[in-house]
């Protein structure tokens, strides 16, 4: 009797959430799938025309799409690798016992809390070709022989944007890894010390293997985020083809070019790409959480 009432209540409680998910994700997604088979503009000025797979066929040979995919992959691989190494270093620093540890932990949360748009603007100002503080300090310390237009030279824009992303998201990485480090029992290190293992050996034989689960979760997480990057790229360099990622190209196609059909096909492609990583993510994290 109680169980029956509980089950009825459960349906009632879950229903509003399911309704919202259907409304803001299910329905729009169905629309995107549907229109990806049409030639259509987003305001429906011209009547839509069914075209089968032609948008997807075009996708395969569109040089702009290929460039955007390549930019996204470059951004993802470089920024996620840097964030992992730096994040691990910072996590190890905070994990060791020292005075002012709380202060450091608070300090690294600041980049995380700052809106991406704001951090992009702050760095744009710091990277200013004439008055930017990085150019001023760089020249003064002799690190730069002359001032550099970081955001105007095609070969430097993507590295500059990656530097901003690394600054902003390394704290997140560090905190996830710190949580992982805190799960490793202290006794293991004590035992290793007694057996004469150096710090370096302890890192490779204890820390790294036991940190792997946390590392994998953090990596997949950041990869998913990096694959759909939009804000930092769009604010710092707009739709510039040399940095345009999939998400930027997708928005440009849909909104600026009003091309609903082809834009939807790009959306589906992004979804497929990300879904592969989501499956990977759920296999690692989901199984544990759903026990």
């Amino acid at each position, binding site marked *: 009797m109680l*169980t029956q009432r*509980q*089950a009825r*209540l459960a349906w009632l*409680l*879950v229903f509003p*959430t*399911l309704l*919202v*998910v259907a409304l*803001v994700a299910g*329905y*729009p*997604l169905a*629309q*995107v799938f549907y*229109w990806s088979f049409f030639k259509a503009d*987003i305001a429906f000025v011209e009547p839509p025309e069914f075209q089968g797979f032609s948008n997807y066929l075009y996708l395969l040979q569109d040089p702009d799409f290929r460039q955007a995919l390549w930019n996204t992959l470059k951004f993802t691989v470089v920024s996620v690798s840097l964030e992992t190494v730096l994040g691990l270093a910072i996590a190890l*620093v905070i994990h060791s016992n*020292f005075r*002012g540890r709380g202060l*450091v932990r608070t300090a*690294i*949360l*600041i*980049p995380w*809390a*700052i*809106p*991406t*748009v*704001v*951090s*992009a*603007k*702050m*760095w744009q*100002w710091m990277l*200013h070709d004439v*008055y930017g*503080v990085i150019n001023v300090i760089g020249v003064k310390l002799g690190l730069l022989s002359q001032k550099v237009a970081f955001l105007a030279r095609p070969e430097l824009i993507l590295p500059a944007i990656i530097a901003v992303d690394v*600054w*902003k998201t390394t*704290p997140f990485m560090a905190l996830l890894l710190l949580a992982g480090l805190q799960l490793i029992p202290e006794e293991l290190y004590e035992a290793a010390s007694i057996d004469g293992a150096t710090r370096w050996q302890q890192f490779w034989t204890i820390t790294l293997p036991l940190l792997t689960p946390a590392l994998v979760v953090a990596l997949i*997480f*950041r990869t998913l*985020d990096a694959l*759909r990057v*939009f*804000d930092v790229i769009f*604010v710092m360099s707009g739709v510039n083809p040399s940095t345009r990622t999939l*998400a930027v190209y997708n*928005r440009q196609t*849909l909104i600026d070019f009003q091309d609903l059909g082809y834009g*939807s096909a790009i*959306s589906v492609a*992004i*979804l497929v790409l990300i879904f592969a990583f*989501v499956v990977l993510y759920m296999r690692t994290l989901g199984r544990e959480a*759903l026990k």
Partner: protein
Amino acid sequence: MKALTRTLNRALFYLLVVFVVVYSVFPFYWAVISSFKPSDALFAADPSFLPLPFTLDHYKNVFLQANFGRNLLNSLLVAGGATLLSLVLGVLAAYALGRLPFPPKNAVLYLVLAMTMFPQISVLGGLFMLLRQTGLFNTHLGLILSYLLFTLPFTVWVLVGYFRGLPRELEEAAYVDGATPLQTLLKVMLPLTGPGLVTTGLLAFIAAWNEYLFALTFTVGDAVKTVPPAIASFGGATPFEIPWGSIMAASVVVTVPLVILVLIFQQRIVAGLTAGAVKG
């Protein structure tokens, strides 16, 4: 000799600590300094590292000339609305998923987890049309609803964890006393999830407050526009004249509340970040 190496190691370690702190904090410090400098000091060959001379002109400019006050209010309404709705709906769903017998539980949990990872860009076109069709384009409600795409699944996911952590005896005692399942949720379980609600609410609020793509795409003009797209499009009198001082002032204004929240709720945020899924 050994003592010397130890001191040296210690010094190197603290140097590393100082580097980490400066690296994390300096960009924000520089934004704050820049926002208080008069324009001629801002564009000096050798800029000072202190806000001297000091001026509030950029702040006046942001609030008097631009529509920044309006943008701030919009951000507050939209982020606050999305957070509140997510918490209310999220608590209900999370209680059912974490505590009640519910046959399709795992299917729904998988759906929720997948949703926390969902790429916003993939539904941009669909949502754009949906908002247009329903007349919610360029309205606060429209933006709030679209933000539920990422705030709600996250809230549900983290709160399920909180509900699962509560002891079973409390619930059983309530049932023995004749409480209905709904009363048990509202009177017994809900008060115990207070800390969880604060953490998830805070993280959902920060995510909504910082959101850019939807705010940029689903608003026109300043009536509904939130702060991030407003800051991104701040322009000067001519396209060549970028008002860096004002941009930095606006940046400081939106960031200070977040930094204060982070300082106060530091430990909870870290716990929430590591417990659940949140985008950085």
